[in-house]
């Protein structure tokens, strides 16, 4: 079924109205979760990243920072440039300011080089959620790892437990912050800010519970991996053509 622009607009408008009614209701009656078009049980979110398409422009990093008010010097997403030397020794890796302004041209000559965008992997068996002492971070019913900034103590145990380095302490709220998979967007039928602004389509939002989502074909036809599979975190960000030298 083709979803037209008008449908999108109408759905967006309806969701907006419902959400605001719901929010008002919650204020008045203290009720949680008013009925609305988005049902968490119908979705299981992740992302697919095609390394061969990433050009290291850093648009995703900028878009994320704009959309989510990410403080300067901290990163909900970032891009790394790998330069693998002859002999496949330790790669030379850089991420100047998270690649928010792209990369300066490299003077190195190496065996091969490529870009790797990284973000929170929204692990289904998340070690960060496991260690939170109070339940301020959690996996939502639709598979997104979120932080409750009104409940977080700022102990940073989760920051230590994340194998991927995707969490940080927000300097203003003094609570832990991280990629939310643009939850406020994807629950309204939009895509994440990073995927929206990726010019080559290297990053794509994936909904594993949607039978028509391209992720199924992507996983079936390509050689894919997650970052640090040995950590057994059930990461949900799948990389196509990720080289073994990537850390």
């Amino acid at each position: 079924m083709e979803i037209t622009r008008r449908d999108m607009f109408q759905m967006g408008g309806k969701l907006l109205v419902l959400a605001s009614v719901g929010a008002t209701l919650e204020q008045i009656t203290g009720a949680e979760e008013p009925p609305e078009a988005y049902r968490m049980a119908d979705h299981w979110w992740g992302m697919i990243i095609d390394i061969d398409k990433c050009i290291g422009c850093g648009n995703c990093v900028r878009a994320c920072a704009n959309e989510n008010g990410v403080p300067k010097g901290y990163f909900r997403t970032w891009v790394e440039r790998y330069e693998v030397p002859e002999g496949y020794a330790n790669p030379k890796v850089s991420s100047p300011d998270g690649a928010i302004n792209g990369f300066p041209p490299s003077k190195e000559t190496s065996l091969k080089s490529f870009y790797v965008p990284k973000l929170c992997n929204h692990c289904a068996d998340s070690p960060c959620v496991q260690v939170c002492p109070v339940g301020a971070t959690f996996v939502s019913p639709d598979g997104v790892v979120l932080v409750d900034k009104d409940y977080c103590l700022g102990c940073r145990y989760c920051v230590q437990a994340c194998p991927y380095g995707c969490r940080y302490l927000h300097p203003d709220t003094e609570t832990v912050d991280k990629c939310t998979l643009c939850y406020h967007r994807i629950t309204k039928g939009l895509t994440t800010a990073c995927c929206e602004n990726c010019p080559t389509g290297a990053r794509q939002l994936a909904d594993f519970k949607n039978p028509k989502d391209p992720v199924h074909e992507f996983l079936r036809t390509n050689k894919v991996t997650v970052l640090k599979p040995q950590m057994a975190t059930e990461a949900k960000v799948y990389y196509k053509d990720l080289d073994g030298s990537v850390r």
Partner: protein
Amino acid sequence: MGNLFRDSGHLIRPALVLLAGLGVFMVVRQAVIPKAFGQYGHYRPGAIDLVRRHPITYAGQQQCAMCHEDQAKVRAEGRHAHVACETCHGPQAKHAEDGSNLPKLPEVATLCVRCHEKDAAKPPKFPQVASAEHSGGMACNDCHKPHNPHL
């Protein structure tokens, strides 16, 4: 037996202190614990709403195309077909809401080279040039029209 009871009677007192403390804790807990905590898991369900309430900054290219159909058509015919409008024009949710919020046009000097400056790490088939040699100081859009950059 009576003696034993009398001589160990003082042990009741720390026990009572402890029980009193436990009682106070249970009362405080009932009052202070967030309602519906644990509904979906070990967290406040209100946190999900809190995250969802975050304002939207990027409108999304489908929104742009609703008013700017002609630019969308030009773009669809060229190599920038899959480059979202806001990738170059910046976040435009405010503009989509109220058209009089005019967006600032992007700085060509820095914008185009971010994607198209030649670099060994970029996929070889991706169009990239050493900008200093390529344009001889001219701005990119002196020759290439951004919506459809084909010459």
